[in-house]
């Protein structure tokens, strides 16, 4: 069952990611990205990360991507225009990317020691309780720092956007 789920959602994720890159309209890309995120949430569940799976949907699906969609709607962003600039990236990008994936694939298959097989339910470590404990004990300092980061980001966004609509 989990093999089928993996295959299905991996395919969904890859197709959505391709769609993100290939679509010309930002909102199509945004929806594709939401698809990728949703599929990833399912994969997280398969990997025993239930809290992260839900956080993925809440944070990415419910907050980040909503912002994206809102901005796209607000700016009424249309389809892209063709640009002749940054030709270097367009020429060198694809071969480099292919080499990148090939290299990573080779490393994962050939160099890493044999990894576990994933069986749903064989390890459920990512409960909210354990993550909470880790966050408030071992990772307390990063947690606090990241809270400050969030605060700064809020202030920054408010300042930037406020100037906008004055």
């Amino acid at each position, binding site marked *: 069952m989990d093999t089928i789920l993996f295959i299905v959602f991996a395919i969904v994720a890859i197709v959505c990611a391709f769609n993100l890159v290939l679509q010309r309209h930002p909102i199509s890309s945004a929806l594709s990205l939401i698809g990728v995120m949703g599929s990833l949430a399912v994969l997280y569940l398969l990997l025993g990360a239930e*809290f992260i799976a839900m956080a993925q949907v809440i944070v990415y699906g*419910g907050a980040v991507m909503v912002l994206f969609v809102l901005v796209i*709607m607000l700016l009424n962003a249309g389809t892209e225009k063709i640009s002749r600039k940054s030709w270097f990236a367009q020429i060198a990008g694809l071969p480099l990317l292919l080499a990148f994936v090939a290299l990573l694939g080779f490393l994962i298959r050939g160099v890493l020691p044999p990894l576990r097989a994933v069986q749903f339910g064989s390890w459920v470590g990512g*409960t*909210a309780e354990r993550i909470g404990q880790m966050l408030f004990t071992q990772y307390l300092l990063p947690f606090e720092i990241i809270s400050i980061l969030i605060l700064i980001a809020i202030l920054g966004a408010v300042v930037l956007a406020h100037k906008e609509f004055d």
Partner: protein
Amino acid sequence: MNFYIVSLIKIAIVFGVFMTTLAYLQWVERKVLAHIQSRTGPLRVGPHGLMQPLADVVKLLTKEDLLPPYVNRFFYLLAPFIAVCLALISISIIPFGPRITVFGYQTYMQISDVNVGILFVLAISAVSVYGVALAGWSSNNKYSLLGALRSSAQMVSYELPLTLAIISPLLLNNHLNFRAISESQAGYYLGFIPRWNIVQMPFPQIFAFIIFMIAAFAETNRLPFDLAEAENELVAGFHTEYSSMKFACFFMSEYAHMVTISCVASLLFLGGWHPLFPAPYSDWVPTLLFVFAAILCFLHAITPARQRDRKTFPVFGIAFLIIAAIWAVPFLHFVLVPVFWFAAKAGFLLFTFIWVRGTLPRFRYDQLMHFAWTFLFPCALLNLLLTALCVAVF
């Protein structure tokens, strides 16, 4: 294999009851609103308009399916689908009763028992913005777009107090699982005060409940926060361009949201399926209630307000008596009594939704956002802090 079969059966039952509830919830709403406004409401189709929902369904299904030429086709068609799917999906993790044994098979009265149930509900409610947003944007209509923008901003804003209000009862119960939350609210103080979260020591969650309900009104786009549709300024907001079945999808999703959120509220704050009275008395409460309803029906039949009541009320009375009899069967108690209490609580909250709609006027948009950010959010935060303090101290 048993697991799949049982799950399919449960899904079938829940789906059937849920859809019926959605259909009749609309009838109830129209009736209640009518009576609040001293009208009679739907009367023509069936006795007391009881067949009205069916008629509506037929109407919506057979209406011409308009596809305006200027819309963004793909998203225009996708939006209601997303909306209704996301609205219906949350019910799958709501427990309606305790663990039961049917024909030797132990199961929960719940489609699936999810460890992170609350997070799941939050996730779904967070994602359900897309339905509205996409509908408004793809309609290529400025009223729709405005409605969608308003609705998205409103839902994102009210999600914060909603989440904060949910967290405080979680502090008392230490679980994210609905079943565990509900079960930790069993029992009574002093033998008669139920240990529901709304009165749970050390810090009663009454404020959290109020905040949750207010935010829930906004999340479901109900009056007094239905700025997304505001028919007198935005025509109908995000679903202006939708008709027939696609419109019905939005309609259905609104009611599904209402039902889900009422269920969540009763699970989180009102003790789920745990009865108001200690077990020896509460087992007979539904029976007594339905008998009482039957008696009322018969009394009305004796002094009918209208001609036809003379025939219909006795029928209703007999129906109520039959239902009372079913609830009186002792070996069904363990299934039906929890369901009754759960339904009673959710039903009361649903009635509140309708009641408020009939009572309060609509907010202005800036008032709405101002209220969320400068009042509701700080209140929720304060409540959370106080709860955490009390939990930490006691």
